[in-house]
């Protein structure tokens, strides 16, 4: 394998791994805000217990999110130095702003939140968790601003001397049409992910009949947020797809396995092409006629461009080359993502249906067993979403401006990339095991009890006990 292939694998491995933790952090932070605010306002102890319990899960998850985030920032320079040089003027700015304006807030106030229970006034302590949630959400905005520029470059010019992209408007970059939708979609998906995590943990306890009084209302909250999260994610995903049809038609055509430009295009339900990276026809294709045109363009007979025709256009525009992404991965990752979104919605709907009758949800062993495994739904959907977004853009690293093959570090050998790829994969694998064990252990252990606690070492419980850390 060349250093390019290895660098791409490394980016895929480290980025997807990082994104296992990110949506949980963002979404769960808002759950903590909700629980702690409820406690602050109602003074009901159950909300405090919920805050502390889910806070513990939040922290286990947060640790790996942070440490893998450093790799994200460093690897642009390490593996993609040609890219970094080319886009640094634009891409570096949102990354730096993210650190300065969002990640500093998130990290500093998280420290205050964890250790500040006894040191801060309740109101100030509540403010710290709000700032953590706002910080994580702000981080997402700036990181997506950088990514959206790769999907749809705006607010730049190409310097004729250096041939590098230069920023002409930070305002345009921070209000990129792609960014606005991607941000909403990502945040909604993060809420959906955290909701299904909460639901899974709650279901675990409902099955065992532990702490039912605490968990039954939380199950209902999580079902509603799952439902709303799924709807918003799908609606925004739909507007993203419409925009993508204009901005990245090749990606959208690959997502639909649409080879020829069609008016009244068919929405594909199932498609198999020849076993090639970039085929030019389908072998088996089942779909709903006209539906793609309606989805893409709100028009029964709308014209949707196909990959073969786009390929011809791009060759004229950019010169010879293959401008299709890997069609199979693009097509199926899109379908897996969308399908799982629908599944999440369905699970929440069933749960809410059960929840109408008192005790029915709590006692439904079947539903709660499914809900525990339901956590896999948003996790896989998140990963599929990024696979689709990034693979669908290939062969470009910056759409229309820079090809991925020209972005890799020229001075780094394949051996070096291979070594670090192996190193990160091994380290990440081990840490995933430790993390999973800790998460499951903490989830099963349940919240620290009201009245169930026995002091050890003859100590008295004084005041509000500090959060487990």
């Amino acid at each position, binding site marked *: 394998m060349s250093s390019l292939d290895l660098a791409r694998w490394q980016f895929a491995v480290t980025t997807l791994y990082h994104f296992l933790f990110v949506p949980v952090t963002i979404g769960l932070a808002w759950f903590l805000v909700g629980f702690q605010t409820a406690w602050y306002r109602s003074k009901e102890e159950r909300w405090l217990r919920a805050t502390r319990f889910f806070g513990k899960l939040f922290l286990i998850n947060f640790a790996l999110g*942070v440490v893998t985030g450093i790799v994200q920032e460093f690897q642009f320079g390490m593996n993609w*130095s040609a890219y970094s040089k080319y886009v*640094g003027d634009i891409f*570096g700015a949102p990354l730096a702003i993210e650190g300065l304006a969002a990640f500093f807030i998130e990290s500093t106030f998280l420290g205050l939140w*964890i250790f500040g229970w006894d040191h801060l006034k309740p109101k100030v302590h509540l403010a710290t968790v709000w700032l953590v949630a706002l910080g994580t959400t702000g981080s997402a905005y700036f990181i997506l601003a950088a990514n959206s520029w790769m999907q749809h470059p705006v607010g730049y010019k190409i310097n004729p001397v250096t041939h590098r992209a230069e*920023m002409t408007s*930070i305002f345009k970059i921070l209000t990129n049409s792609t960014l606005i939708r991607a941000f909403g979609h990502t945040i909604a998906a993060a809420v959906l992910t955290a909701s299904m995590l909460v639901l899974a943990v709650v279901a675990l306890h409902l099955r065992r009949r532990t702490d039912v009084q605490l968990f039954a209302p939380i199950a209902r909250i999580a079902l509603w947020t799952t439902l709303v999260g799924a709807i918003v994610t799908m609606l925004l995903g739909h507007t993203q797809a419409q925009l993508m049809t204009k901005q990245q038609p090749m990606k959208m055509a690959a997502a639909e396995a649409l080879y020829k430009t069609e008016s009244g295009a068919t929405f594909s339900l199932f498609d198999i092409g020849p076993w090639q990276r970039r085929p030019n026809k389908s072998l088996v294709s089942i779909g709903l006629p006209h539906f793609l045109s309606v989805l893409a363009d709100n028009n029964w007979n709308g014209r949707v461009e196909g990959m073969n025709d786009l390929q011809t256009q791009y060759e004229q525009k950019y010169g010879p080359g293959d401008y299709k992404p890997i069609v199979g991965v693009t097509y199926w990752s899109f379908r897996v993502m969308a399908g799982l979104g629908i599944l999440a919605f369905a699970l929440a709907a069933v749960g809410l249906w059960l929840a109408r009758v008192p005790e029915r949800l709590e006692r439904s062993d079947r539903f709660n067993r499914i809900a525990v495994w339901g956590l896999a739904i948003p996790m896989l959907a998140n990963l599929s979403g990024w696979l689709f977004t990034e693979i669908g853009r290939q062969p470009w690293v910056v759409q229309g401006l820079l090809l991925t093959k020209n972005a890799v570090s020229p001075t780094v050998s394949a051996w070096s990339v291979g070594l*670090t790829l192996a190193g990160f994969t091994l380290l990440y694998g081990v840490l995933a095991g430790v993390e999973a064990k800790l998460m499951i252990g903490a989830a099963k252990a349940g919240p620290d009890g009201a009245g169930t606690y026995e002091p050890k070492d003859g100590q008295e*419980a*004084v005041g509000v006990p500090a959060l487990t850390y």
Partner: protein
Amino acid sequence: MLAATVHHGYWNLQTLWFFLIVVLWIGYFVLEGFDFGVGAVLPFVGRDVEERSVLIRTIGPVWDGNEVWLLVAGGATFAAFPGWYSSLFSGFYLALFLILVALILRGVAIEYRNKRPDAEWRNRWDVVLAVSSGLAALLWGVGVSDFVGGVPVDASGQVTANLLDLLHPYAIFGGLTMLALFAFHGALFLSLRTAGELEARAKATAARLGLPAAALVVGFLIWTYANARSNGKGLVPGIVPIAAFCLPFAAGAFLRSQRVGLAFTATAASVALIVLTIFLNLYPRVIVSSTDSALSPTIWTTSSSHYTLTVMTIVALVFTPIVLLYQAWTYWVFRARITGTDVRTPLTQH
């Protein structure tokens, strides 16, 4: 890369950003320096799991905020000097990989150690924390020394070093210097933040580290000065390195007279001035080329456009003071010394 010879004066955005990045590195090394140090002296100051819980607790609320200084330094370099960022990060490839591994293990050790009550689990993470902290301190020392020590650079301004090019004697000496100084700095931090027997032991450890750290700093700065003289570029730092090597001695003296706060301030200032010395020595270059000094990339050959630098200047001037305020407030909130009871409160499993 011919612009290296042209003098552009000091009143420009490139110079401003060069020194803003210096400020970020100083922030990173002064702050994370003591939490690296706490990790490195952990086995020497803390004799059992519970004592080590107290020691780790002193950095618990702040280490993550400290590490963000690195992320911002990296991000700011990316934004303001893409050529520097890309050349440096790809050129120091395996060294950075090792640093990343050390930082990952360190973060995980701090965060995961207290998630389970059993002593064996905690012991294991304590070993990881001590080794990774020491390694990170050493590697950063090596890396920063390589900025000025010189590495092979090709005609396009790309660093072409392999791992062995980075491990020349001057850089290794720099690594040992940083390790010793951070350990001293960390032991002083612990002397300020603990009480009773742990405080006494932290002070004793600091007292033992003071002289070796000070001697290494003197040696490192003399070596740096000799290097700088031989290639005749960069600002002549004068008072800065002199103060930098006097301060660790002052810290030792303050410690002996029980003025630990002043001693800690002195090591913090020494770390800051060493970083400043290195970057003053570098200016206006961003990396020293050992191949041919004319090939050294400079702030002029690697910077972003005027527009990006202007935008980033506004962002930095607005947010940096705010960050400083709330981080300072955090240290104020957690100013009380940590004792065994802090980590033994019933529901906590510190």
